[in-house]
Structure formats: structure tokens, C-alpha cells
């Protein structure tokens, strides 16, 4: 009986390189199975964040349950988990894959196998998933399905015999994908009679329901009324609701082994539904917890401060809520002389950082000031101690430093051959060390470079994209620490060091960086009633200087009867802008000034 029900379940993910059409395929599957009425359908239906739709990327994994009447006459329950495609979110992908038995691998018929395709495939293989390759966008003029199939066979080693050639956009052959999911992806295994064992692979906070855990049930069952225990924390809760996504929440009687769904148990504290934890029945607990997930290691750090100091506690709350959705964010309080109280936050990568900043601003309506991203430096002090430093401000005096080391990465860049020269030039500029280069069959090249992480956290990805007209893809893995001649570059405004603008750079790059930051700041700082010197300095030595001239005229030329309202509005706007300024000594600094440090010329 139980096995029969399980036999009709298929849990799968869609994995792909960014832009290869994951979300569009998910849309078609949802439409084809009638999960959402056509008239209610919108593009990227699983990407519910505005940010995802705008950027056309998936940030959060999302799941949906679909009913599919297959050609064998039986109706199957398909649980689809849509996953992010960008390298920064690979952690998110790995969590989702642990809840599946199979993965649909989408490959763009004109782009072929890309860096992220491979990375995702390896993840899927690590999780023992059955992989079903699908060639997408075969309707486009540049489509070369045969060549892409060969690539999949050669580079990934997957059999492409009978692999569906589809257009997720037009719906061409998408039915074949559903059929193959049923025939290739194995049904889940598990014992509905055994004690409850469910993996939390995601969670989020709902204002009405509290923390919602998204789970894959491995054994047993769970229903409203079940008293559950979080095996990691030992905390117990009474389940108030279970259900599945369709794609909105649909409550159901119970969740049982093999199924994917959500559990609500009026959990107030976000930390109590830790992703990776195992849920069991408190009255009849399972013996062993699931291994869970390796914690994601933040690689990029920056200070995040509320633009309005009074919003400090709002920022904390927002970070806590986001952390529930995304356990890979880390944050701890820090204080800057310039910016007051804020948080030093750690991210998986630059896109991740950018996305979190945007989500904080949009979803929580916060105005933020963000400092330049930093990496973690390893510093050996003369007294023999070793410290890790994620905030340039805290760099000990040079005299106390024996050696400074910076994290390195091994970067893999895949690009059409044409752009090899300009990309290598970029890597050299960023202090890269060339490792090797392989020619792929289709006029593309894989280039490996060893690069300091602190060079790529600024604008490397953007520069790469612009130099390759968007064609190059980029992936990196950490490659240990190396000693390096690093210095702290300070920025002085009107003679005072502004701690939030300090960065750590390689000595050779310090002059150029200092000049560039000073110039950018001169453009970003509005004229004030006095002249403001901007200086870049290493130690006590000034290496660049710019001046913001004093404002001399700030008055509306005309102001008569009709202009009064308009003039008041202008003043209110000016006042609003002033409120958002940071007082650094005697200088007022707009939030944008902090971005000046980020924007580098190439």
C-alpha cells in the first residue's frame, strides 16, 4: 500500500548554468501538468522575488508539487525543486539536491556545456542522483543540438541517447521531459512505518505562520498534531499544519516518506529551523540524525550600516530574517567611527553580497551604507600569534606584523577563443598567475589562473563580462593562502582618516587605487561650505590628493507666488539628502561615496 503510493512519486531538481532556461522549463512543466491555470500563469512563476524576475535569475530554490498522468495510465506526483544557477548559490543547490532522486540537466543548444553546468552535475552525482540531460532552445537559429550532445557525452560522460531536444519557450517536446522523469528518475525509498525522519532543506519566515520548514520526509510520517523534535537543537514543537507547494502553500492531511512539503509548528525563533537539521517525532524518535550539510563558508565580507542610524535594530531584525532564508549569511556587530553601529557580514561571493544588500533594501525598506568588500587575511604577528582579519580597520600596526597572507583562488574561465587575449590581460592586471589553458572542441577555451581573491571581489566579474561581451563564464575555488606585500590604504577627508573607506591592497596597486578612489570621491562628495581635501595615504605617506571645492551658490534664482510650493519641495528633498549623509568629522558624506571605493577602472 505504502510502496504503491511511493512508487508514484518522483522528486527531481532542474539544474543548469545561469540563463540556460531552467525557470522557463519549470514554467512549462507547471503549465503542462495543469498545476497552475494558464490564465494565472506568469513568467518565472517560481521566482517569486521581484529581484529574481527583474534579473532573470533564480536566487532561492523553490519547490512545487505537480500531478502528471503518464502514458502508462498512472498518475504520478512530481515534486520539482527549482534551483539557482549562479556559482555563488551552489550551496543552495546542493541542499535542494539532497531532497531528490533525480535531476533534469538543462543545456543550452547554442551555448553548450558551461562551467556551472559541470559544477552542478558533480553536485548531482555526489548526491547519487539520476541525471536526465535535456537540450533546450533548439528553436533558436544558433542551436547545434548534435554538437552539444557530443559535448555532454565527452565532458560529462552522460548518455544522450533519446535525450529530449526541447524549446522551453515554445513548449516543443516538453512532454517528453515529463515522460522521461517518470521513466528514468527512480521513486523514493523509505519506510512510512518507521519513526519520522525529515530533512529541512530550506526554511523561511512567514509573518502569519512563523518559521516554515521545507522538508523532504525520508521515513515515517508527519501530520498536524505531531510533536516534533529538532534533532540538532533538541527543541520540540507541535505541528499545526503540513502541506505542499502548488506553487502556493496547500495544506494537506499528512506528509509521509518520499514526499516533499512544508511543516508549520508555530516556531517563533528563526534559529530553531536550521537548514540541514533533522526533524523527528518527539514521542517516537529516530535513532540517528541525517548528516546535514556542510556549513557554507563566507568568502567576502563587508560592513553594512543603516543610512539612518535609528534603523539599527531594524537592520538586525532584517538580517536575522534573511538568515533564516539563507543560512550562508553571517553577520556580527561592528562599530565604525564613521558609520556608527552596523554589522560585518559574510557572503558566499559578490553576487550573493549584492543580492542580499538589495533584498535588505527592498524587502525590509532599509537604506544602507555598505563598505568596500574585503576578504579574510591571515596575519602572523611578531609575537608569534596568528590572526584572521576581515576588516581592514583592525589591521595591527605595521611594526607588529611579521607576514601577511591573502587568500588565493583558482579561477576557471571558459570563453570563446576570440576573447582569450583581453581576458588574460585582465587576469595579469589583477595579479593573476597563469596556470594552463585548454582548447575545447567548439572554438572555446578554458583558462585557469591563480588569482588573489581580493582582486576579484571588486569588479572582476563585471570586467570579464564586458571584455567578453558577456560570453565568458567564471568559476572559482579557494586555493589557500599566500604571503603577499599588502598595505592598508587609508582615505583622509579634511585631514581625518575615514575608517569605513580603508582598504587593504597590494603595494604595487596602491598608488593607482589611491588616485582612483580620491578622484571618484571628489565626484561623489557634494560641495560643502568649505573646501575639502581628499587624501589617500599609506601609513603616514600621502600618495594622492584631490579637492572638493567649497559651495558658493545654492539659492533658487526665482521665487515668486507660484514657486513657493516647488521651492519647499526642493528644500525638503535637500533636507532628506542631508539626513542620509554621514558626518565624518566636519565632512558630510553621501552613501554613494562609499561605493566610489568599489568602482574601479580597468
Amino acid at each position, binding site marked *: 500500500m505504502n510502496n504503491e503510493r511511493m512508487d508514484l512519486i518522483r522528486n527531481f531538481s532542474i539544474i543548469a548554468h545561469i540563463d540556460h532556461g531552467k525557470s522557463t522549463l519549470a514554467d512549462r512543466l507547471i503549465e503542462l501538468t495543469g498545476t497552475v491555470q494558464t490564465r494565472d500563469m506568469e513568467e518565472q512563476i517560481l521566482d517569486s522575488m521581484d529581484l529574481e524576475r527583474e534579473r532573470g535569475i533564480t536566487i532561492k530554490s523553490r519547490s512545487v508539487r505537480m500531478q502528471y498522468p503518464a502514458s502508462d495510465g498512472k498518475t504520478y506526483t512530481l515534486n520539482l525543486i527549482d534551483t539557482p544557477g549562479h556559482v555563488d548559490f551552489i550551496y543552495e543547490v546542493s541542499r535542494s539536491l539532497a531532497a531528490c532522486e533525480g535531476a533534469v540537466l538543462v543545456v543550452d543548444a547554442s551555448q553548450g556545456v558551461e562551467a556551472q553546468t559541470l559544477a552542478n552535475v558533480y553536485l548531482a552525482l555526489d548526491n547519487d542522483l539520476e541525471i536526465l540531460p535535456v537540450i533546450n532552445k533548439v528553436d533558436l537559429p544558433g542551436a547545434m543540438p548534435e554538437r552539444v550532445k557530443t559535448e555532454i557525452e565527452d565532458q560529462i560522460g552522460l548518455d544522450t541517447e533519446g535525450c529530449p531536444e526541447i524549446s522551453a519557450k515554445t513548449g516543443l517536446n516538453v512532454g517528453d521531459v515529463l515522460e522521461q522523469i517518470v521513466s528514468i528518475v527512480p521513486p523514493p525509498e523509505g519506510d512510512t512505518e518507521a519513526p519520522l525522519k525529515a530533512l529541512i532543506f530550506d526554511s523561511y519566515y512567514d509573518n502569519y505562520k512563523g518559521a516554515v520548514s521545507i522538508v523532504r520526509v525520508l521515513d515515517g510520517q508527519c501530520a498536524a498534531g505531531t510533536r516534533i523534535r529538532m534533532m540538532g537543537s533538541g527543541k520540540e514543537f507541535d505541528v499545526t499544519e503540513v502541506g505542499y507547494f502548488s506553487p502556493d502553500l496547500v495544506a494537506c492531511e499528512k506528509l509521509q516518506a518520499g514526499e516533499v512539503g512544508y511543516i508549520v509548528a508555530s516556531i517563533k525563533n528563526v534559529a530553531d529551523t536550521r537548514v540541514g537539521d533533522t526533524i523527528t517525532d518527539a514521542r517516537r524518535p529516530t535513532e540517528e540524525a541525517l548528516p546535514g550539510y556542510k556549513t557554507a563558508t563566507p568568502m567576502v565580507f563587508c560592513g553594512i550600516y543603516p543610512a539612518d542610524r535609528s534603523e539599527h535594530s531594524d537592520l538586525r531584525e532584517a538580517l536575522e530574517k534573511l538568515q533564516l532564508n539563507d543560512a550562508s549569511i553571517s553577520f556580527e556587530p561592528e562599530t565604525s567611527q564613521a558609520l556608527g553601529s552596523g554589522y560585518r557580514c559574510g557572503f558566499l561571493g559578490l553576487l550573493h553580497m549584492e543580492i542580499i544588500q538589495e533584498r535588505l533594501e527592498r524587502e525590509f525598506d532599509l537604506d544602507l551604507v555598505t563598505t568596500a568588500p574585503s576578504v579574510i587575511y591571515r596575519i602572523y604577528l611578531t609575537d608569534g600569534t596568528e590572526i584572521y582579519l576581515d576588516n581592514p580597520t583592525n589591521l595591527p600596526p605595521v611594526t607588529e606584523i611579521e607576514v601577511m597572507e591573502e587568500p588565493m583562488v583558482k579561477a576557471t574561465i571558459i570563453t570563446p577563443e576570440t576573447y582569450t587575449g583581453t581576458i588574460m590581460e585582465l587576469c595579469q592586471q589583477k595579479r593573476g598567475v597563469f596556470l594552463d589553458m585548454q582548447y575545447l572542441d567548439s572554438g572555446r577555451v578554458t583558462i585557469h589562473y591563480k588569482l588573489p581573491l581580493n582582486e576579484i571581489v571588486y569588479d572582476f566579474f563585471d570586467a570579464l563580462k564586458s571584455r567578453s561581451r558577456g560570453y565568458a563564464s567564471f568559476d572559482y575555488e579557494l586555493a589557500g593562502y599566500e604571503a603577499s606585500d599588502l598595505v592598508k590604504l587609508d582615505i583622509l577627508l579634511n585631514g581625518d582618516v575615514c575608517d569605513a573607506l580603508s582598504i587593504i591592497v597590494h603595494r604595487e596597486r596602491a598608488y593607482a587605487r589611491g588616485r582612483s578612489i580620491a578622484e571618484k570621491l571628489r565626484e561623489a562628495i557634494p560641495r560643502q561650505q568649505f573646501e575639502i581635501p581628499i587624501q589617500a595615504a599609506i601609513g603616514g605617506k600621502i600618495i594622492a590628493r584631490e579637492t572638493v571645492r567649497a559651495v*558658493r551658490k*545654492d539659492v533658487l534664482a526665482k521665487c515668486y507666488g507660484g514657486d513657493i510650493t516647488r521651492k519647499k519641495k526642493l528644500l525638503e528633498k*535637500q533636507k532628506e539628502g542631508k539626513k542620509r549623509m554621514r558626518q565624518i568629522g566636519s565632512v558630510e558624506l553621501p552613501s554613494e561615496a562609499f561605493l566610489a571605493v568599489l568602482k574601479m577602472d580597468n
Partner: protein
Amino acid sequence: MNTALYIHIPFCRQKCSYCSFVSAPLDKRAPAVIAALKQEMCLYPKNTKIDTVFFGGGTPSVLENNALPQLLAAARERFILSENSEITAEANPESVTPALLAAWRAAGINRLSFGVQSANDENLRLLGRLHTFVEAKKAIRYAREAGFEHINADLIYNLPGQSTAAFEADLHALLALGIDHLSCYALSIEEGTPLAEMPLPIQDEDIAVEQWMSAGRICAQYGLHRYEVSNYAKPGAQCRHNLHYWHNDPYFGLGPAAHGARRANGCWLRTANVPDINAYLQAVFGEGTLSQSTQIGREEEQFESIMLETRTTEGLRLAAFEARYGVRFTERYKTAIDCACAQGLATLSNTHFALTERGLLLQNRVLLSFMD
């Protein structure tokens, strides 16, 4: 307290390239607009004492010779115009004729304001003006011949690429005509105007300041003194109508897009008429909303007074402020006053809080501290 009357004539022969005000080419709606303006007067309390009348635009001089006299007659019928009222009409040099000026003079208009804008024909073309400087001189001569004693000219400075020497030459050429009032504005390039689309050199703030300073100096040589940020007059020739605005006194605004301010049921009320001519006609003669009013709170009204009065070189009149609001200005705004004075942007006497020359140029900055 007397009220000022502003009448907006929303027509021009052609819109200037820097203009962001409401105006349309003169068309057959003009008689209807004049009728509507008369009608609109009836919406305001009868027998209100009116001290100054200002026909602005647009270009009032594009209308038929008898248009303004008719409107003035209607105003005299509805309101009580004081004996020595100041009645100003704006005019563009290309559209004034001796006959028009004679008709205006006979109707009681006693002050003219010409949009001269520049003494340089090339700049006039850039600004989209339809006249040359020679025509402007001719118009001012006609005005004198028609018996107008009080003549203002508008002049624009800080034009793209304009040197201070070139501006000073403009100023001399204009002041030599013997006008008793000058409004001298920095060009501000507003979004959406044709000028904003042109690839022009960036206007330099320091040059603007230099030209503003030289305007003050050169005007003084001709006996005109700065009495407001952008206005200069011979003794006794200050524009009473505009001083009315700067003293935050009540005024009725008639016509499309016209603004007004008055006290109604104890509340300070700002009104703004619909900007669209058709919508305006519709509202006056048929159905529709003529104007939007906003109630201004006490604190905000006080701020308006500060914002407006500190534009004048005389400064904010402490006694008038206290009489109007029952609040002692020097106590209520002590911090802001001290701050402005300490920075050399303002001075405080027993009777006035006035901005210094540097303070006038940085008036916005001074005002910000009054907003706390």
C-alpha cells in the same frame, strides 16, 4: 492686510527654449480665457482690498489691446483697488505697440516688466526669443513715450559659455536705458525644455557667483540696489507685488496654473489652479475641479515666512513675525540663527534677521537648519 492679485495670461507667440511654465501659442481660446478670468474673480470675496495687480504669463502683451483693460475693469468692479495700487503688466518687446501701451496706460496700468533677457542677439536666439536687443530698446522707448515711469527688465545671466565681461556689457547696455528696476536671474536649465536637449557647455558655479557679484556692483553705479536675491531697484521703485510674495502676504492667483495663498477660516491655504487651459475653462464654466488647496500648518507657514523674507536684503522683520505668529523668532529659531550668524551667513539686529551677501547666495543651506 491687503491682498495682491495675480492674473495669469497663458499665451505666448512662441515658447522660449528655457521656459518650463504653462503657456500655449495664442489661439482662439483667448477670448474664452479672458471671460473665464472675469468669472473666476467672482469666486473670491467681494470688495477684498487689493493693493497690487500683476498680469503675468505667458505674454500678456500678445492679447488684444483692450483685454487687460477689460480685466482690470472687472477687477475694480469685484474688488476694491487702493488709490495708489501698483498695477504691472509683463510684455515682450516684439509684441508692444504704442497703441497697446496707450490703452494699458489709460486703464491704469502703471508699471511694465519687459522680458529683455539679453543684450546680445546671438544669446537671444539661443534662448528662443523672438526679438532683438534693438527691438527691446524700441519697446522701452515706446513705454516712456506712453508715460510709464516704472519699467522693469528681466535679464538672464550665466548663459552657457558667457564670460563675466560679456555679461557686464549686457548689463551696461540695459541699465543705460534708464530703467528703474532689474530682475536678473541665473539661467536654470529645466528638464524637459528644449535647452536641456542642447549640447551646451556646463555652467560654472564660480562664474555664476562672479556675475551675480558684478550685477550688484554695476547696478549700484546706475542707482539700483539689490533688495532681493535677484532683484534691483532705484529707491522707492521696488516691486510691491513681489515684496508681497516675499512677505508671505495673501494673494489671489487667477488663470490656468496660477497659485494663490490666503487665510480662510483661520487656516493658511495655498491654492493651485489646474494647469491645462481646456481643463481650466471647463472648470470655470462647467464642471470640474478648478483648483487644489493645501492647508499649511502653523510651523510650515512660519517656515514659509522665513524662506521668503530672508530672500530680501532687508531681511525678516522680527516684529511682523511676532505679530503674525505670536512667537518670538529669535527664541524659536535660536540654534539656526546662531549657526548662520557664526558662519557669517547672516546678521541679527534688533529689528531684522538678514542674510549677508554670502548668505543670500547660500540661502538654501541656511534654510536647512531652520527645518529641524
